[in-house]
Protein backbone atom coordinates (compact mmCIF):
# COMPACT_ATOMS: atom_id res chain seq x y z
CA UNK A 1 0.00 0.00 0.00
CA UNK A 2 1.19 3.49 -0.84
CA UNK A 3 0.86 6.72 1.07
CA UNK A 4 -1.53 8.57 -1.20
CA UNK A 5 -2.31 12.25 -0.84
CA UNK A 6 -5.74 13.65 -1.69
CA UNK A 7 -5.75 17.40 -2.22
CA UNK A 8 -9.23 18.56 -1.36
CA UNK A 9 -10.45 21.91 -0.08
CA UNK A 10 -13.91 23.42 0.06
CA UNK A 11 -12.43 26.71 -1.08
CA UNK A 12 -12.04 25.12 -4.54
CA UNK A 13 -15.82 25.40 -4.75
CA UNK A 14 -15.74 29.21 -4.43
CA UNK A 15 -14.99 29.56 -8.14
CA UNK A 16 -18.59 30.04 -9.30
CA UNK A 17 -19.19 29.56 -13.03
CA UNK A 18 -22.86 30.54 -12.89
CA UNK A 19 -25.93 28.52 -13.83
CA UNK A 20 -25.83 25.76 -16.47
CA UNK A 21 -22.05 25.64 -16.63
CA UNK A 22 -20.60 22.13 -16.77
CA UNK A 23 -17.43 23.04 -14.85
CA UNK A 24 -19.30 23.48 -11.59
CA UNK A 25 -18.46 23.15 -7.91
CA UNK A 26 -20.70 20.08 -7.57
CA UNK A 27 -18.05 18.10 -9.44
CA UNK A 28 -15.78 18.22 -6.40
CA UNK A 29 -18.60 17.20 -4.06
CA UNK A 30 -19.34 14.20 -6.28
CA UNK A 31 -15.66 13.27 -6.23
CA UNK A 32 -15.37 13.67 -2.45
CA UNK A 33 -18.50 11.61 -1.81
CA UNK A 34 -17.31 8.89 -4.16
CA UNK A 35 -13.98 8.59 -2.36
CA UNK A 36 -15.71 8.69 1.03
CA UNK A 37 -18.36 6.11 0.11
CA UNK A 38 -15.66 3.77 -1.14
CA UNK A 39 -14.15 3.87 2.37
CA UNK A 40 -10.95 5.45 1.07
CA UNK A 41 -10.99 8.66 3.07
CA UNK A 42 -9.28 7.00 6.06
CA UNK A 43 -6.65 5.47 3.81
CA UNK A 44 -5.41 8.69 2.23
CA UNK A 45 -3.65 11.79 3.51
CA UNK A 46 -6.01 14.72 3.15
CA UNK A 47 -4.10 17.79 2.00
CA UNK A 48 -5.58 21.29 2.28
CA UNK A 49 -5.04 24.09 -0.23
CA UNK A 50 -2.42 26.76 0.25
CA UNK A 51 -2.03 29.96 -1.72
CA UNK A 52 0.65 29.85 -4.42
CA UNK A 53 3.63 32.16 -4.41
CA UNK A 54 3.31 34.23 -7.60
CA UNK A 55 6.94 33.53 -8.47
CA UNK A 56 5.96 29.96 -9.42
CA UNK A 57 3.07 31.08 -11.60
CA UNK A 58 5.49 33.44 -13.33
CA UNK A 59 7.58 30.48 -14.44
CA UNK A 60 4.79 29.73 -16.92
CA UNK A 61 2.60 32.83 -17.32
CA UNK A 62 3.66 36.40 -18.05
CA UNK A 63 3.23 38.84 -15.16
CA UNK A 64 1.06 40.97 -17.44
CA UNK A 65 -1.34 38.06 -17.98
CA UNK A 66 -1.49 37.24 -14.27
CA UNK A 67 -2.32 40.88 -13.50
CA UNK A 68 -4.87 41.06 -16.30
CA UNK A 69 -6.61 37.99 -14.85
CA UNK A 70 -6.53 39.39 -11.30
CA UNK A 71 -7.75 42.81 -12.42
CA UNK A 72 -10.57 41.42 -14.57
CA UNK A 73 -11.71 39.34 -11.63
CA UNK A 74 -11.65 42.34 -9.27
CA UNK A 75 -13.78 44.47 -11.58
CA UNK A 76 -16.60 41.95 -11.24
CA UNK A 77 -16.60 40.83 -14.89
CA UNK A 78 -18.21 37.47 -15.43
CA UNK A 79 -15.99 36.22 -18.24
CA UNK A 80 -12.30 36.32 -19.08
CA UNK A 81 -10.85 36.07 -22.63
CA UNK A 82 -13.61 33.71 -23.89
CA UNK A 83 -17.28 33.40 -22.89
CA UNK A 84 -16.48 29.79 -21.85
CA UNK A 85 -14.44 31.14 -18.97
CA UNK A 86 -17.22 32.13 -16.60
CA UNK A 87 -15.98 33.53 -13.34
CA UNK A 88 -16.79 35.32 -10.12
CA UNK A 89 -14.98 37.59 -7.67
CA UNK A 90 -13.29 34.55 -6.03
CA UNK A 91 -11.99 32.97 -9.21
CA UNK A 92 -8.51 34.49 -9.10
CA UNK A 93 -7.96 33.49 -5.47
CA UNK A 94 -9.30 30.00 -6.16
CA UNK A 95 -6.91 29.63 -9.08
CA UNK A 96 -4.03 30.65 -6.78
CA UNK A 97 -5.18 28.03 -4.25
CA UNK A 98 -5.29 25.37 -6.97
CA UNK A 99 -1.69 26.03 -7.99
CA UNK A 100 -0.51 26.40 -4.39
CA UNK A 101 -2.23 23.19 -3.26
CA UNK A 102 -0.64 21.25 -6.10
CA UNK A 103 2.84 22.63 -5.41
CA UNK A 104 2.48 21.79 -1.71
CA UNK A 105 1.39 18.27 -2.65
CA UNK A 106 4.43 17.91 -4.92
CA UNK A 107 6.64 19.20 -2.09
CA UNK A 108 5.23 16.59 0.29
CA UNK A 109 5.92 13.85 -2.23
CA UNK A 110 9.49 15.00 -2.80
CA UNK A 111 9.98 15.15 1.00
CA UNK A 112 8.76 11.55 1.31
CA UNK A 113 5.64 12.40 3.31
CA UNK A 114 3.50 10.80 0.62
CA UNK A 115 4.26 8.55 -2.37
CA UNK A 116 1.73 9.85 -4.86
CA UNK A 117 -1.42 12.00 -4.92
CA UNK A 118 -4.68 12.98 -6.56
CA UNK A 119 -5.24 16.74 -6.67
CA UNK A 120 -8.97 17.46 -7.01
CA UNK A 121 -8.68 21.13 -7.88
CA UNK A 122 -10.75 23.75 -9.66
CA UNK A 123 -10.36 25.59 -11.92
CA UNK A 124 -8.65 23.13 -14.28
CA UNK A 125 -5.55 24.16 -16.22
CA UNK A 126 -4.47 22.27 -19.33
CA UNK A 127 -6.06 24.64 -21.90
CA UNK A 128 -4.44 27.75 -20.40
CA UNK A 129 -1.57 29.09 -22.50
CA UNK A 130 1.14 31.50 -21.42
CA UNK A 131 -1.01 34.56 -22.09
CA UNK A 132 -4.41 33.11 -22.82
CA UNK A 133 -7.21 31.65 -20.72
CA UNK A 134 -9.30 29.06 -22.56
CA UNK A 135 -11.72 26.18 -22.06
CA UNK A 136 -12.50 26.84 -18.35
CA UNK A 137 -8.74 27.14 -17.57
CA UNK A 138 -6.83 30.16 -16.17
CA UNK A 139 -3.47 29.01 -14.76
CA UNK A 140 -1.86 25.94 -16.25
CA UNK A 141 -1.60 23.96 -13.01
CA UNK A 142 0.31 21.00 -14.40
CA UNK A 143 2.82 23.13 -16.29
CA UNK A 144 3.61 25.13 -13.16
CA UNK A 145 4.04 21.87 -11.21
CA UNK A 146 6.53 20.67 -13.83
CA UNK A 147 8.57 23.87 -13.59
CA UNK A 148 8.45 23.70 -9.77
CA UNK A 149 9.81 20.14 -9.84
CA UNK A 150 12.67 21.24 -12.07
CA UNK A 151 13.59 24.45 -10.31
CA UNK A 152 12.98 23.55 -6.67
CA UNK A 153 13.71 19.83 -6.63
CA UNK A 154 16.31 19.40 -9.35
CA UNK A 155 14.21 17.05 -11.46
CA UNK A 156 15.49 17.08 -15.04
CA UNK A 157 12.93 15.09 -17.02
CA UNK A 158 9.23 15.47 -16.28
CA UNK A 159 6.73 13.27 -18.11
CA UNK A 160 3.19 14.61 -18.52
CA UNK A 161 0.39 12.25 -19.49
CA UNK A 162 -2.92 13.91 -20.38
CA UNK A 163 -5.93 11.62 -20.76
CA UNK A 164 -8.60 14.31 -20.55
CA UNK A 165 -10.81 13.82 -23.61
CA UNK A 166 -9.77 17.26 -24.90
CA UNK A 167 -6.28 18.10 -26.08
CA UNK A 168 -4.24 20.11 -23.57
CA UNK A 169 -3.27 22.84 -26.02
CA UNK A 170 -1.94 25.02 -23.20
CA UNK A 171 0.45 22.42 -21.80
CA UNK A 172 1.64 21.54 -25.30
CA UNK A 173 2.14 25.22 -26.17
CA UNK A 174 4.16 25.88 -23.00
CA UNK A 175 6.56 22.96 -23.51
CA UNK A 176 6.65 22.55 -27.29
CA UNK A 177 10.22 23.88 -27.59
CA UNK A 178 11.44 22.14 -24.43
CA UNK A 179 13.10 18.71 -24.46
CA UNK A 180 13.04 18.40 -20.65
CA UNK A 181 9.26 18.06 -20.34
CA UNK A 182 7.58 15.40 -22.46
CA UNK A 183 3.91 16.08 -23.16
CA UNK A 184 1.83 13.06 -24.18
CA UNK A 185 -1.90 13.41 -24.79
CA UNK A 186 -4.64 11.01 -25.91
CA UNK A 187 -7.94 12.69 -26.75
CA UNK A 188 -10.88 12.85 -29.14
CA UNK A 189 -9.74 13.79 -32.65
CA UNK A 190 -9.49 17.61 -32.99
CA UNK A 191 -11.76 17.76 -36.05
CA UNK A 192 -14.56 16.55 -33.79
CA UNK A 193 -13.66 18.18 -30.51
CA UNK A 194 -12.48 21.31 -28.71
CA UNK A 195 -10.01 22.97 -28.98
CA UNK A 196 -9.05 21.77 -32.48
CA UNK A 197 -5.39 20.96 -31.80
CA UNK A 198 -3.49 17.78 -30.95
CA UNK A 199 -3.00 16.14 -34.31
CA UNK A 200 -0.41 13.37 -34.54
CA UNK A 201 1.91 15.54 -36.59
CA UNK A 202 2.23 18.07 -33.76
CA UNK A 203 5.47 16.72 -32.32
CA UNK A 204 7.15 19.75 -30.76
CA UNK A 205 9.36 22.43 -32.27
CA UNK A 206 13.03 23.38 -32.29
CA UNK A 207 14.86 21.74 -29.36
CA UNK A 208 11.57 20.21 -28.28
CA UNK A 209 11.06 18.38 -31.58
CA UNK A 210 10.08 14.82 -30.70
CA UNK A 211 9.15 15.66 -27.09
CA UNK A 212 5.44 16.12 -27.72
CA UNK A 213 3.23 13.25 -28.77
CA UNK A 214 -0.45 13.27 -29.57
CA UNK A 215 -2.84 10.38 -30.07
CA UNK A 216 -6.16 11.52 -31.57
CA UNK A 217 -9.04 9.07 -31.20
CA UNK A 218 -12.07 9.04 -33.51
CA UNK A 219 -15.62 9.53 -32.16
CA UNK A 220 -17.37 6.41 -30.95
CA UNK A 221 -14.18 4.61 -29.92
CA UNK A 222 -13.57 3.38 -26.40
CA UNK A 223 -11.61 0.96 -24.22
CA UNK A 224 -10.15 -1.30 -26.93
CA UNK A 225 -8.74 1.50 -29.06
CA UNK A 226 -7.43 3.39 -26.04
CA UNK A 227 -5.67 0.27 -24.83
CA UNK A 228 -4.13 -0.37 -28.25
CA UNK A 229 -3.02 3.25 -28.76
CA UNK A 230 -1.62 3.75 -25.27
CA UNK A 231 0.40 0.56 -25.71
CA UNK A 232 1.71 1.59 -29.11
CA UNK A 233 2.16 5.33 -28.60
CA UNK A 234 2.73 6.14 -24.93
CA UNK A 235 4.64 3.18 -23.51
CA UNK A 236 7.54 2.98 -25.99
CA UNK A 237 7.83 6.76 -26.01
CA UNK A 238 8.23 7.00 -22.26
CA UNK A 239 10.53 3.96 -22.27
CA UNK A 240 12.85 6.12 -24.33
CA UNK A 241 12.29 9.39 -22.44
CA UNK A 242 12.67 7.88 -18.96
CA UNK A 243 10.81 10.50 -16.93
CA UNK A 244 11.89 11.05 -13.31
CA UNK A 245 8.41 12.14 -12.17
CA UNK A 246 5.02 11.59 -13.82
CA UNK A 247 2.39 14.32 -13.80
CA UNK A 248 -1.04 13.31 -15.00
CA UNK A 249 -3.77 15.53 -16.43
CA UNK A 250 -6.77 13.50 -15.35
CA UNK A 251 -10.03 14.06 -17.21
CA UNK A 252 -13.04 11.80 -16.78
CA UNK A 253 -14.92 13.40 -19.71
CA UNK A 254 -14.23 10.54 -22.10
CA UNK A 255 -16.65 8.33 -20.17
CA UNK A 256 -19.53 7.05 -22.30
CA UNK A 257 -22.02 8.76 -19.97
CA UNK A 258 -20.28 12.15 -20.20
CA UNK A 259 -21.90 14.26 -22.91
CA UNK A 260 -18.88 16.52 -23.41
CA UNK A 261 -17.43 14.04 -25.90
CA UNK A 262 -18.26 11.20 -28.27
CA UNK A 263 -15.65 8.90 -26.72
CA UNK A 264 -17.03 5.78 -25.05
CA UNK A 265 -14.61 4.82 -22.30
CA UNK A 266 -16.08 2.62 -19.59
CA UNK A 267 -15.35 2.91 -15.87
CA UNK A 268 -13.12 -0.18 -16.24
CA UNK A 269 -11.39 1.44 -19.21
CA UNK A 270 -10.47 4.39 -17.02
CA UNK A 271 -9.09 2.03 -14.39
CA UNK A 272 -6.94 0.30 -17.00
CA UNK A 273 -5.49 3.63 -18.12
CA UNK A 274 -4.51 4.61 -14.56
CA UNK A 275 -3.14 1.14 -13.74
CA UNK A 276 -0.97 1.38 -16.85
CA UNK A 277 0.29 4.81 -15.80
CA UNK A 278 1.13 3.45 -12.34
CA UNK A 279 3.14 0.61 -13.92
CA UNK A 280 5.06 3.21 -15.92
CA UNK A 281 5.60 5.17 -12.69
CA UNK A 282 6.87 2.12 -10.81
CA UNK A 283 9.25 1.39 -13.64
CA UNK A 284 10.75 4.85 -14.10
CA UNK A 285 9.79 7.32 -11.39
CA UNK A 286 9.95 5.23 -8.21
CA UNK A 287 6.18 5.51 -8.10
CA UNK A 288 6.21 9.30 -8.06
CA UNK A 289 2.91 10.13 -9.74
CA UNK A 290 0.89 13.30 -9.21
CA UNK A 291 -2.56 13.28 -10.78
CA UNK A 292 -4.26 16.64 -11.34
CA UNK A 293 -7.94 16.98 -12.15
CA UNK A 294 -8.89 18.58 -15.46
CA UNK A 295 -12.34 17.77 -16.90
CA UNK A 296 -15.10 15.26 -16.22
CA UNK A 297 -18.64 16.54 -16.02
CA UNK A 298 -20.99 13.61 -15.46
CA UNK A 299 -21.88 14.05 -11.79
CA UNK A 300 -23.42 10.56 -11.64
CA UNK A 301 -20.10 8.97 -12.71
CA UNK A 302 -17.45 11.19 -11.15
CA UNK A 303 -17.69 9.52 -7.71
CA UNK A 304 -16.93 5.98 -8.86
CA UNK A 305 -14.31 7.16 -11.36
CA UNK A 306 -12.46 9.21 -8.73
CA UNK A 307 -12.72 6.43 -6.13
CA UNK A 308 -11.22 3.89 -8.55
CA UNK A 309 -8.55 6.40 -9.49
CA UNK A 310 -7.53 6.95 -5.85
CA UNK A 311 -7.66 3.21 -5.10
CA UNK A 312 -5.24 2.56 -7.95
CA UNK A 313 -2.87 5.22 -6.61
CA UNK A 314 -3.19 3.69 -3.12
CA UNK A 315 -2.53 0.15 -4.38
CA UNK A 316 0.52 1.50 -6.18
Amino acid at each position, binding site marked *: MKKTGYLHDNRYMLHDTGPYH*PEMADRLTAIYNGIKDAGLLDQVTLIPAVRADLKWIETVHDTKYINRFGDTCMTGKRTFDYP*DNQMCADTYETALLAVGGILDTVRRMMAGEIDNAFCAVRPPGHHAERNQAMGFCYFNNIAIAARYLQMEHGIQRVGIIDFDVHHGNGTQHIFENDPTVFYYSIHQHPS*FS*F*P*GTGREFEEGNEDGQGFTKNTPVL*PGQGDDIYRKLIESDLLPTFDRFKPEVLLVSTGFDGHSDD*DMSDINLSTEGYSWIMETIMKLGNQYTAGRVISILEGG*YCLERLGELAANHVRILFNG
Partner: protein
Amino acid sequence: MFVSRSMVSQVITIDKDATVFEAQEKMAVNGVRHLPIVDADNRLIGIVTDRDIRSAMPYSMLKEKGGSEEREQLAQLKVEAIMIRNPMTLSPMHTIQDALLLIQKKKVGAFPVVDDEGKLIGILSVRDLLRAFTYVLGIGQPGTLVGIEVEEKVGQLKKIVDAITEENISFGSVLVARTWEEGKRAVFPYLLTTNVAKVKRKLAGMGYALIDPMDWHIDKLP
Protein backbone atom coordinates in the same frame (compact mmCIF):
# COMPACT_ATOMS: atom_id res chain seq x y z
CA MET B 1 -12.03 37.94 -50.99
CA PHE B 2 -9.69 39.49 -53.57
CA VAL B 3 -6.49 37.91 -54.78
CA SER B 4 -4.63 41.08 -53.80
CA ARG B 5 -5.28 40.28 -50.12
CA SER B 6 -4.19 36.66 -50.23
CA MET B 7 -1.26 36.75 -52.65
CA VAL B 8 2.42 36.90 -51.72
CA SER B 9 3.72 40.34 -52.73
CA GLN B 10 7.43 39.77 -52.14
CA VAL B 11 7.86 37.62 -55.23
CA ILE B 12 11.07 35.65 -55.73
CA THR B 13 11.88 36.06 -59.43
CA ILE B 14 14.74 34.95 -61.65
CA ASP B 15 16.51 36.44 -64.62
CA LYS B 16 15.90 34.87 -68.02
CA ASP B 17 19.66 34.53 -68.51
CA ALA B 18 20.16 32.59 -65.30
CA THR B 19 20.97 28.88 -65.65
CA VAL B 20 18.55 26.13 -64.67
CA PHE B 21 20.91 25.18 -61.84
CA GLU B 22 20.67 28.70 -60.49
CA ALA B 23 16.88 28.47 -60.73
CA GLN B 24 16.91 25.14 -58.93
CA GLU B 25 19.10 26.57 -56.19
CA LYS B 26 16.88 29.63 -55.80
CA MET B 27 13.79 27.45 -55.40
CA ALA B 28 15.46 25.30 -52.77
CA VAL B 29 16.80 28.24 -50.78
CA ASN B 30 13.44 30.06 -50.76
CA GLY B 31 11.20 27.02 -50.44
CA VAL B 32 9.19 27.83 -53.56
CA ARG B 33 8.30 25.85 -56.66
CA HIS B 34 7.54 28.70 -59.08
CA LEU B 35 9.83 31.48 -60.26
CA PRO B 36 8.35 34.23 -62.45
CA ILE B 37 10.68 35.89 -64.96
CA VAL B 38 10.40 39.63 -65.54
CA ASP B 39 12.07 42.10 -67.85
CA ALA B 40 13.86 45.27 -66.82
CA ASP B 41 10.51 47.06 -66.38
CA ASN B 42 9.17 44.30 -64.10
CA ARG B 43 6.87 43.08 -66.88
CA LEU B 44 6.11 39.39 -66.62
CA ILE B 45 7.58 37.42 -69.51
CA GLY B 46 7.44 33.87 -68.22
CA ILE B 47 7.46 31.43 -65.36
CA VAL B 48 9.56 28.39 -64.56
CA THR B 49 8.46 25.62 -62.22
CA ASP B 50 10.42 22.91 -60.42
CA ARG B 51 8.71 20.46 -62.72
CA ASP B 52 9.99 22.24 -65.85
CA ILE B 53 13.50 21.98 -64.45
CA ARG B 54 13.15 18.30 -63.64
CA SER B 55 11.79 17.63 -67.13
CA ALA B 56 14.81 19.38 -68.64
CA MET B 57 17.18 17.08 -66.82
CA PRO B 58 18.08 13.64 -68.07
CA TYR B 59 17.14 10.84 -65.70
CA SER B 60 20.76 9.96 -64.95
CA MET B 61 21.31 13.44 -63.54
CA LEU B 62 18.49 13.20 -61.13
CA LYS B 63 19.89 9.96 -59.82
CA GLU B 64 23.50 11.00 -59.34
CA LYS B 65 24.68 14.55 -59.09
CA GLY B 66 28.05 13.79 -60.69
CA GLY B 67 30.20 16.07 -62.83
CA SER B 68 29.30 14.34 -66.06
CA GLU B 69 29.36 15.76 -69.56
CA GLU B 70 25.61 16.03 -69.48
CA ARG B 71 25.88 18.17 -66.42
CA GLU B 72 28.26 20.56 -68.16
CA GLN B 73 25.91 20.87 -71.09
CA LEU B 74 23.03 21.47 -68.79
CA ALA B 75 25.00 24.10 -66.92
CA GLN B 76 24.83 26.18 -70.10
CA LEU B 77 21.04 25.83 -70.35
CA LYS B 78 19.29 29.12 -69.63
CA VAL B 79 15.98 29.58 -67.89
CA GLU B 80 14.72 31.36 -71.00
CA ALA B 81 14.95 28.09 -72.94
CA ILE B 82 12.63 26.15 -70.67
CA MET B 83 10.32 28.79 -69.20
CA ILE B 84 6.64 28.97 -70.02
CA ARG B 85 6.13 32.14 -72.03
CA ASN B 86 3.06 34.30 -71.42
CA PRO B 87 1.75 32.15 -68.58
CA MET B 88 -1.80 32.37 -67.31
CA THR B 89 -2.11 35.19 -64.83
CA LEU B 90 -4.57 36.63 -62.36
CA SER B 91 -5.39 40.26 -61.75
CA PRO B 92 -5.40 41.53 -58.17
CA MET B 93 -9.15 42.06 -58.49
CA HIS B 94 -9.89 38.43 -59.23
CA THR B 95 -11.46 36.80 -56.19
CA ILE B 96 -10.05 33.82 -54.34
CA GLN B 97 -13.08 31.87 -55.54
CA ASP B 98 -12.00 32.66 -59.13
CA ALA B 99 -8.52 31.47 -58.28
CA LEU B 100 -9.78 28.27 -56.68
CA LEU B 101 -11.86 27.35 -59.72
CA LEU B 102 -9.10 28.30 -62.17
CA ILE B 103 -6.44 26.34 -60.33
CA GLN B 104 -8.69 23.28 -60.43
CA LYS B 105 -9.56 23.80 -64.08
CA LYS B 106 -6.08 24.58 -65.38
CA LYS B 107 -4.29 22.16 -63.06
CA VAL B 108 -1.51 24.57 -62.18
CA GLY B 109 0.16 25.15 -58.84
CA ALA B 110 0.41 28.93 -58.90
CA PHE B 111 -0.60 32.04 -60.81
CA PRO B 112 1.52 35.16 -61.17
CA VAL B 113 -0.55 38.27 -60.41
CA VAL B 114 -0.06 41.23 -62.76
CA ASP B 115 -1.48 44.73 -62.95
CA ASP B 116 -3.10 46.39 -65.98
CA GLU B 117 0.29 47.07 -67.52
CA GLY B 118 1.42 43.49 -67.17
CA LYS B 119 3.77 44.27 -64.33
CA LEU B 120 4.31 41.55 -61.77
CA ILE B 121 2.85 42.47 -58.38
CA GLY B 122 2.44 39.11 -56.69
CA ILE B 123 2.02 35.36 -56.88
CA LEU B 124 -0.81 33.16 -55.60
CA SER B 125 -0.13 29.47 -55.06
CA VAL B 126 -2.25 26.54 -53.96
CA ARG B 127 -0.57 26.97 -50.59
CA ASP B 128 -1.85 30.56 -50.30
CA LEU B 129 -5.36 29.43 -51.19
CA LEU B 130 -5.26 26.70 -48.58
CA ARG B 131 -4.17 29.25 -46.00
CA ALA B 132 -7.08 31.51 -46.97
CA PHE B 133 -9.58 28.66 -46.67
CA THR B 134 -8.13 27.41 -43.40
CA TYR B 135 -8.87 30.89 -42.17
CA VAL B 136 -12.39 30.81 -43.62
CA LEU B 137 -13.08 27.52 -41.83
CA GLY B 138 -12.07 29.20 -38.58
CA ILE B 139 -10.09 26.16 -37.44
CA GLY B 140 -7.19 28.27 -36.25
CA GLN B 141 -9.34 29.25 -33.27
CA PRO B 142 -10.36 26.91 -30.45
CA GLY B 143 -13.82 25.53 -31.00
CA THR B 144 -16.08 22.55 -31.58
CA LEU B 145 -17.75 21.44 -34.81
CA VAL B 146 -21.37 20.29 -34.62
CA GLY B 147 -23.29 18.54 -37.42
CA ILE B 148 -27.05 19.06 -37.81
CA GLU B 149 -29.38 17.53 -40.40
CA VAL B 150 -32.15 19.86 -41.60
CA GLU B 151 -35.01 19.83 -44.08
CA GLU B 152 -34.16 21.62 -47.30
CA LYS B 153 -36.44 24.59 -46.85
CA VAL B 154 -36.05 28.29 -46.19
CA GLY B 155 -35.50 29.47 -42.62
CA GLN B 156 -33.78 26.44 -41.10
CA LEU B 157 -30.44 28.12 -40.68
CA LYS B 158 -32.01 31.10 -38.92
CA LYS B 159 -33.59 28.86 -36.30
CA ILE B 160 -30.31 27.10 -35.66
CA VAL B 161 -28.30 30.30 -35.51
CA ASP B 162 -30.88 31.87 -33.17
CA ALA B 163 -30.86 28.86 -30.85
CA ILE B 164 -27.06 28.92 -30.63
CA THR B 165 -26.88 32.70 -30.27
CA GLU B 166 -29.32 32.55 -27.34
CA GLU B 167 -26.71 30.44 -25.55
CA ASN B 168 -24.22 33.28 -25.98
CA ILE B 169 -21.97 31.16 -28.20
CA SER B 170 -19.97 32.74 -31.04
CA PHE B 171 -19.52 31.20 -34.47
CA GLY B 172 -16.14 30.51 -36.06
CA SER B 173 -17.86 29.54 -39.32
CA VAL B 174 -20.94 27.79 -40.67
CA LEU B 175 -20.70 25.27 -43.50
CA VAL B 176 -23.71 23.97 -45.38
CA ALA B 177 -23.36 20.71 -47.29
CA ARG B 178 -25.64 20.75 -50.34
CA THR B 179 -25.05 17.22 -51.49
CA TRP B 180 -26.65 15.57 -48.52
CA GLU B 181 -29.60 13.18 -48.67
CA GLU B 182 -32.57 13.91 -50.92
CA GLY B 183 -34.50 16.83 -49.46
CA LYS B 184 -32.00 17.33 -46.64
CA ARG B 185 -29.02 19.47 -45.97
CA ALA B 186 -26.32 19.26 -43.37
CA VAL B 187 -25.32 22.32 -41.40
CA PHE B 188 -21.94 22.40 -39.66
CA PRO B 189 -21.56 25.31 -37.26
CA TYR B 190 -18.05 25.65 -35.85
CA LEU B 191 -18.72 26.97 -32.35
CA LEU B 192 -16.08 28.88 -30.44
CA THR B 193 -16.68 27.02 -27.20
CA THR B 194 -15.93 23.72 -25.53
CA ASN B 195 -19.36 23.76 -23.91
CA VAL B 196 -21.58 22.22 -26.60
CA ALA B 197 -23.47 19.59 -24.62
CA LYS B 198 -26.26 21.95 -23.63
CA VAL B 199 -26.76 23.42 -27.08
CA LYS B 200 -26.76 19.93 -28.61
CA ARG B 201 -29.54 18.89 -26.24
CA LYS B 202 -31.41 22.07 -27.11
CA LEU B 203 -31.19 21.45 -30.87
CA ALA B 204 -32.30 17.86 -30.40
CA GLY B 205 -35.22 19.15 -28.35
CA MET B 206 -36.17 21.43 -31.26
CA GLY B 207 -36.50 18.34 -33.42
CA TYR B 208 -33.21 18.51 -35.32
CA ALA B 209 -31.24 15.35 -35.87
CA LEU B 210 -27.62 15.62 -34.78
CA ILE B 211 -25.43 13.80 -37.24
CA ASP B 212 -23.13 11.09 -35.93
CA PRO B 213 -19.61 12.55 -36.28
CA MET B 214 -18.45 9.43 -38.10
CA ASP B 215 -21.00 10.22 -40.85
CA TRP B 216 -19.96 13.83 -41.36
CA HIS B 217 -19.01 14.86 -44.89
CA ILE B 218 -19.15 18.11 -46.79
CA ASP B 219 -18.82 16.82 -50.32
CA LYS B 220 -19.42 13.71 -52.35
CA LEU B 221 -16.88 12.39 -54.78
CA PRO B 222 -18.19 12.44 -58.36
